[in-house]
């Protein structure tokens, strides 16, 4: 298992390099000019100098190589320094100072390091996306279990219909719909997610909960629909197996049979689906963040795209790619760990 994990980890390096090359190539082919916003009164030779200052004069392979160095060598050094010096978790380790003032990936919009902005935006996305995923799973698994157990019952029919609807309604429709109902007509919930809000007492905690309900539920609806379908299918596959009959025949209680024997076997494919769906939910967060004005990384990507801020776009898209590759790997490893029938060696 360990050799398999290591081999997959090593194999993911060329994958990531290839993806980064595709993204870089797309951006190179793009006709956009970062100097488009500079006033027309600036003479062309000055513009040329500005372009060279941004590193645009160099040939593409030099640009690509520099980006790789910055992303894979300089930024990790800064991250390790941050971890050992100031972070809560590893602050007790001896302070390191790997970072020696090398050039970092600089955003063309703000002229500040891209990763600093990403780190500022990350918590909002992680809170909303992570919480929605947890809520979605917590709702989905009981629904899946019960509708498989009561196959063809009213609950099963209704559950299948609702998950199908949740599967089909896009988040850019549910978002505005919820805003119209709960913010405009009922006035219960705020329509905009306020990221500057500080939680320090019970009242502010309630405000935070209220503003998180709608974005979290919109994302959770998608997760619930998908995972409860998988859960139901996996349970149905297992409920007719011989070992279930054996368990019942030897006099185990129904609760033990379903919740221990069947559930544990059905969770194997569902856990991998949960891991595989994680990157997709980050992608879906782009739309939800846009609807509810959450300033997370999805919204950052959109603004960077519109502002022609290529280093920012490149880095963010690549972060999404890393997430996908990482969670694919986690899903494969989990599958091997959970299912003793699977042998990778």
């Amino acid at each position, binding site marked *: 298992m360990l050799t398999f994990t290591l081999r997959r980890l090593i194999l993911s390096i060329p994958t990531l390099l290839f993806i980064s090359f595709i993204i870089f190539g797309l951006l190179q*082919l793009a*006709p*956009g000019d970062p100097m488009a916003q500079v006033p027309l009164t600036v003479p062309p030779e000055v513009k040329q100098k500005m372009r060279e200052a941004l590193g645009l004069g160099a040939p593409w392979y030099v640009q690509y190589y520099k980006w790789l160095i910055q992303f894979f060598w300089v930024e990790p050094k800064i991250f390790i320094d941050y971890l050992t010096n100031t972070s809560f978790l590893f602050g007790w380790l001896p302070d390191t100072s790997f970072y020696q003032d090398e050039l970092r990936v600089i955003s063309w919009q703000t002229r500040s390091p891209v990763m600093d902005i990403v780190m500022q935006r990350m918590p909002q996305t992680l809170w909303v996306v992570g919480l929605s995923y947890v809520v979605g799973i917590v709702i989905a698994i009981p629904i899946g279990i019960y509708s498989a157990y009561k196959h063809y019952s009213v609950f099963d029919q209704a559950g299948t219909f609702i998950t*199908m609807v949740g*599967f*089909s309604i896009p988040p850019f429709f549910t978002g505005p*719909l919820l*805003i119209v109902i709960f913010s405009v007509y009922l006035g219960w919930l705020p329509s905009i997610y306020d990221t500057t809000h500080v939680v320090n007492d019970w009242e502010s905690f309630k405000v935070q909960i209220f503003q998180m309900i709608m974005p979290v539920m919109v994302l959770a609806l998608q997760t619930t629909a998908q995972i409860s379908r998988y859960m139901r299918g996996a349970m149905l596959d297992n409920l007719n197996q011989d070992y279930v009959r054996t368990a019942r025949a030897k006099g185990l209680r129904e609760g033990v049979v379903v919740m221990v024997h069947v559930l544990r076997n059905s969770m194997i494919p569902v856990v991998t689906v949960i891991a595989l769906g994680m990157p997709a939910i980050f*992608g879906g967060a782009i739309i939800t963040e846009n609807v509810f004005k959450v300033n997370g990384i999805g919204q950052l990507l*959109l603004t960077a795209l519109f502002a022609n801020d290529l280093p920012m776009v490149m880095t963010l898209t690549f972060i999404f790619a890393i997430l996908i590759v990482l969670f694919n790997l986690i899903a494969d490893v989990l599958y091997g760990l959970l299912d003793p029938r699977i042998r990778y060696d």
Partner: protein
Amino acid sequence: MTEQAIPASPIEADMETFGALTDKEPQKPPRSQWFDVWEQFRKHKGAVFGGSFLLFITLAVIFGPFLWDLDPKALDIRNKDWRPIYHALWDTDAVERGKVGWAHPLGSDQLGRDILSQMISGGRVSMAVGWLAMVLALVIGTAVGVVSGYFKRLDFWLMRFTDLALSLPILPLTLLAVTLFRQPLNASFGPEGGMFILIVGIIGMTSWMQTARIVRGDILALKEREFILAARSIGTRSGKIIRSHLLPNVISPIMVSATLGLATAIITESALSFLGVGFPSDYPTWGKLLADAVQRMQYYPERVLLPGIAISLTVLSVNYLGDGLRDALDPRIRGR
């Protein structure tokens, strides 16, 4: 022993055993496979509803402009902000101001453009994008799947390539490609044609991977069967084997992934329009209509609801159609 009737002659005994083997009832006419599929499909109510609704929407957006021939782009600023016709039931204020009527059954927007004709022409674009992108994805996916399943030498590289494509971040890359390549394509094909080609191309090129994997798996299993061996032994060429022996046998997984592809394509196109990187602003699609109406949704909620419901119902019906097709095309479920 003695009670048992003893057959008079061996021939009679043979007739008796043979008689047990013949059918008591008259033979049923032979049934084709597709007739069985249709029988099973008809049992799935959701799928029948889904299929009919999809057919209805497709016909409505094709023939709608002939029945309702108002120009969706025609500005009529005096007749702006009409409400849908059902407002006449309770909304006396709108009736007094003359903002309800059969001239605009679904109302008109802030520039006086008729919403019904906008919905029809928007649906035309959305459905066209959906169908074309789905066909493109199917063609690429089937080609890759068949080639990598049939030719062992290409299998490894094509499947590595598919895995790589599967780990690309689709929505960010789509956003990227649409914003970056909008201008050059617009210059050569016009703002609408360029955008259409771009969106169809991108959705098609980013959603073929699942089809390729499914088709490859099926081809790998089919390739080892006796009928392929028989075909090869009489000297059939690879191209002919693929076309007339392998492709007809993988048609059912392709059809199921076609429905999934259509649903994804419609949603992706609407999402792009919603995020403001889709078609130009005076060119209605369902996603564009929805996005434009969001700013004023507390005053005119119907303008968000109508396109939103149209997208959701279409996708829902396509998904149900896929569900029914999956059941109908699976020979293990069929006939039960």
